[in-house]
């Protein structure tokens, strides 16, 4: 046994910290700006690059990937060197990781305001940037696992388990969700469509929260909290149970973002039930964090680091209770599409991620610069600003969400909508929105205080390098029974595998007797496993978990298995349905024309999906307001899906054919002229921008490759088709605008040029068929007009056909 002198690479940690803080400021500044834009839509100053729907993705991506991302890398790189007793394997990889990640962030900051987006939440970045993300993630993984291979500490600590789960799962999620067919350098189409795209996206979206915002930060908690508290971690066995339960269950919970949508009911139920089962595993992490402070609670008074960490863990506990609550179908029916969800994610992002980051920075920076924190009072003030800011944010969003949810579903006794006009609900949101913006601004103010404090701290010291003597681990061969066979035949593996087989079988059986027999078998297996485990423990047999915790490859493989099961079980059946009804039923979606597709791409580019859903749930209040509820076979050609997740404006799935095209024309240019009280930004640039007519052929060809049944003739004549349809749409708009002019009697017989000349007498506008606005209107008039879905409003009085008196829609 000999010792070795190693010098930790802390320069890379410092770099990631400063990057995280910088992008934290940027991300939160944009956050406050978009929060204000919801109250004062003019705040984009009429510039396309600062419009709400383009800035919101910038805000979310900056906070998630730039602020929290860099914070995670700092926390991971500092802690693994100490936990592995080894220097980071490669300085080159560390630097490539750092600069590569910052380059990705810069690319995102440029492309998102330009409207270059895939149109899927938190997965907006276009394919070239996605490729870069994957490469840099692999660089991170290589550096991490290489360092792990060189470790001088055989057993792997719980913090590292969470890091491993993060690295493995994010790779799987990111690649699967971003598979897309490029059309140009800045444009691609998701290979999935409609309900499949929705499920893959929310499997990703939910687990980005799980494996990017939660698991790595839990790992960070397991290192920095006991360090700061100087107390032992409460329970090893709790960490085993909650780690495996958390990563196994989390991956199933994605469909809770799609409750009551066109997603098949079985998948929705799985999403809800697994979310409920997440409650205990999540709280396991909170418990292990909070109970680590037993006997050290008094330290909270003096130490700002502990204040932040403990408050962060507490907000984690709150958010992970609220999450399962919101996943209950009936609760979700009220809360989905409202600000309650926005409040929920911010209690996680501001409360858990933000406070954990601050706690970690306040602990790390003095140590990395060999000094002490510049101002404890400053940190205390930051803490209170942040906490009060979060509370203002959460409470205002609860009020806003519940108010709007209740108003939108309220019915009069005669079965009509109590609040017919959507904008009446917006009026009630104004004060909560102002309070929210204030809460966010307070949080940001506290963050600025931290920047100043840490900068002062760093300047008062100087960058230090830590050198330690470590005992080099002997490279002994694995003891008998610890090899592959021992791991595969290990009792926890065999038992959980068997139980899983029975559980999956229950998913498929429809007989009550068989299901009960299977449940009985699961119970018996569980009891048997418990008995065997207790006996093994008494006999002093080495725990299976202890074995894999000493074997990096085995541990990583088990983690991969645990997260793949849920993904495969939910995604595979959904990817296999062809989303088609039995022949003859109709109700299919018809493919978009070239012009409609161009319009749809503009809809995606402007980020309309961030405020408008295209998914009507089967609730009376929704079908009365919007029309027949959405069916899964109506989205088969939607690459990507645009169901949305928040209704700041009304649902648009039955918008096609509902309004006059001239209504849309005027509304897009000045929403408040048509709809007083609306907070939608104006999109005047759409009128002057021209569509790229030539690109349509390429777009249709890409869609054809993805399975949309375009004929070659349609593709060849795409250019001409666009003009023909656009001129017809424009003629329709002009007819509506000049309708009623005294001197124009036989308007229908006029050609486009004559109509334009006539329109000049009422409006100064210029009228071009290739304007983006015309293409967008063509798309809006097409949405939801699937064959077989009725659009004529049923009427009890005139038509007197009771069967469809209320449900037929508009």
């Amino acid at each position, binding site marked *: 046994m000999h010792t070795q002198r190693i010098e930790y690479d802390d320069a890379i940690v410092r770099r990631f910290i400063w990057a995280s803080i910088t992008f934290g400021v940027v991300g939160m500044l944009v956050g406050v700006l978009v929060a204000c834009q919801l109250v004062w839509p003019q705040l984009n100053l009429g510039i396309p690059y600062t419009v709400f729907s383009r800035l919101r993705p910038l805000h979310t991506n900056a906070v998630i990937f730039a602020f929290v991302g860099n914070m995670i890398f700092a926390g991971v790189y500092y*802690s693994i060197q100490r936990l592995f*007793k080894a220097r980071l394997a490669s300085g080159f990889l560390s630097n490539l990781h750092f600069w590569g990640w910052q380059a990705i962030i810069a690319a995102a900051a440029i492309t998102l305001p330009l409207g270059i987006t895939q149109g899927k939440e938190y997965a907006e970045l276009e394919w070239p940037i996605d490729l870069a993300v994957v490469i840099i993630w692999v660089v991170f993984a290589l550096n991490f696992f290489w360092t792990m291979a060189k470790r001088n500490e055989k057993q792997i*600590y719980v913090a590292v388990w969470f890091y491993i789960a993060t690295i493995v799962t994010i790779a799987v999620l990111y690649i699967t969700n971003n598979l897309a067919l490029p059309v140009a350098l800045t444009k691609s189409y998701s290979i999935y469509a409609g309900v499949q795209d929705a499920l893959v996206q929310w499997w990703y979206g939910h687990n980005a929260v799980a494996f990017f915002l939660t698991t790595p930060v839990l790992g960070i908690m397991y*290192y920095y909290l*006991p*360090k700061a508290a100087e107390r*032992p971690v*409460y*329970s*090893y*066995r*709790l960490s085993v*149970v909650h780690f495996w339960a958390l990563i196994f269950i989390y991956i199933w919970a994605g469909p809770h973002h799609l409750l009551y949508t066109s997603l098949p009911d079985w998948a929705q139920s799985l999403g809800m*039930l697994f979310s*409920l*089962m997440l409650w*205990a595993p999540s*709280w396991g992490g909170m*418990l292990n964090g909070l109970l680590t402070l037993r006997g050290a609670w008094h330290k909270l008074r003096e130490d700002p680091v502990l204040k932040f960490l403990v408050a962060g863990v507490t907000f984690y506990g709150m958010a992970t209770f609220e999450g*399962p609550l919101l996943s209950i179908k009936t609760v979700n029916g009220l809360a989905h599409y409202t600000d309650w969800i926005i409040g929920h994610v911010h209690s996680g992002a501001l409360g858990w991620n933000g406070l954990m980051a601050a706690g970690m920075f306040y602990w790390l920076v003095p140590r990395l610069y060999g000094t002490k924190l510049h101002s404890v009072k400053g940190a205390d003030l930051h803490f209170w600003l942040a906490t009060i800011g979060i509370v203002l944010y959460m409470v205002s969003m609860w009020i806003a969400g519940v108010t709007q949810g209740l108003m939108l579903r309220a019915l*009069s006794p*005669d*079965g*009509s*909508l109590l609040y*017919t006009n959507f904008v009446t609900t917006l009026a009630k949101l104004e004060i909560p929105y102002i309070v929210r913006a204030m809460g966010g601004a307070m949080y940001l103010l506290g963050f600025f205080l931290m920047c100043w404090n840490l900068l002062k701290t760093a300047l008062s010291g100087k960058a230090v390098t830590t050198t330690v003597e470590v005992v080099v681990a002997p490279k002994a061969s694995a003891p008998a029974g610890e090899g592959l066979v021992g791991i595969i035949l290990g009792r926890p593996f065999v038992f959980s595998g068997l139980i899983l087989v029975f559980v999956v079988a229950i*998913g498929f*059986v429809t007989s*009550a007797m068989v*299901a*009960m027999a299977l*449940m009985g078998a699961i119970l018996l297996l569980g009891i048997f496993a418990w008995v065997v485990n207790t006996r093994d423990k008494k006999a002093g047999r080495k725990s299976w978990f202890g074995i894999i915790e000493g074997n990096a490859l085995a541990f990583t493989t088990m983690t991969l298995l645990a997260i793949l099961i849920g993904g495969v079980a939910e995604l595979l059946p959904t990817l296999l349905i062809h989303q088609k009804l039995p022949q003859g039923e109709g109700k299919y979606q018809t493919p978009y024309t070239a012009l409609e597709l161009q319009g749809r791409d503009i809809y995606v580019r402007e980020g309309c999906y961030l405020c408008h859903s295209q998914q009507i749930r*089967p609730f009376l209040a929704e*079908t*009365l307001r919007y029309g027949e509820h959405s069916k899964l076979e109506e989205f088969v050609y939607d690459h990507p899906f645009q169901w949305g997740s928040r209704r700041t404006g009304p649902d648009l799935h039955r918008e096609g*054919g*509902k*309004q*006059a095209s*001239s*209504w849309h024309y005027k509304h897009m240019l000045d929403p408040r002229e*048509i*709809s007083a009280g609306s907070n939608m930004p104006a999109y005047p640039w759409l009128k002057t921008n021209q569509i790229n007519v030539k690109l349509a052929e390429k777009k249709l060809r890409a869609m054809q490759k993805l399975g949309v049944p375009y004929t070659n003739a349609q593709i060849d004549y795409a250019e001409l088709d666009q003009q023909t349809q656009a001129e017809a749409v424009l003629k329709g708009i002009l007819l*509506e605008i000049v*309708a*009623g002019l*005294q001197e124009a009697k036989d308007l229908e017989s006029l050609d486009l040029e004559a109509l334009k000349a006539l329109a000049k007498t009422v409006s100064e506008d210029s009228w071009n068929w290739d304007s983006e606005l015309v293409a967008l209107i063509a798309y809006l008039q097409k949405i939801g007009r699937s064959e077989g879905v009725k*659009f*004529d*409003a049923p*009427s*009890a*009085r005139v038509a*007197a056909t*009771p*069967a469809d*008196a*209320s449900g*037929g829609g*508009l």
Partner: protein
Amino acid sequence: MSEKNRVHHVYDGIEEEDNRLPNWWLAILFGTIVFAFGYWFVYETTQTLPSPLDEYEGERNALAAQQAKQAADSPLSNESIKSLVNDPATVEAGKKVFAGVCVSCHSAQGQGGIGPNLTDKYWLHGAEPMDIINAVENGFPDKGMEAWGARLGPEKVKQVAVFVESIRNTNVPGKAPQGEIIAAE
């Protein structure tokens, strides 16, 4: 509880104890698992309880029946609407509905904008009160008139039709005439 405070392992100075899992925590863990099996059994395996879609169909049919009964009990006619024009409460209620949803196209006094002027003697889709009911309820989607029947419900449709009837021939200057001249009665 004999194992309390036993240190399991030490990593970089971080001690790890191996305390028992709290009973209330285990209760949540197993409670939610048992609930999940029970829920799946009832809603998915045996489908004993109605699915969200079934529940919706039920509510929808109930509302349809209620509205059909209401329509049968108090049928509307050209005459009944015309006579309601003399009832200030109905006209006032109709005015409120009009101000909420109709103004964006027909303007505050009904003088027209995107949609036609409702105060002149020209009518596009028939000029009888029941034609107005039909226009509000079913709309003319291909002409840009939205169907409001489902959203407003029968009572508000009636009120707004009465209001429109009340502003007939008030000739507010606005959008130029469209449609057929219907002589003032």
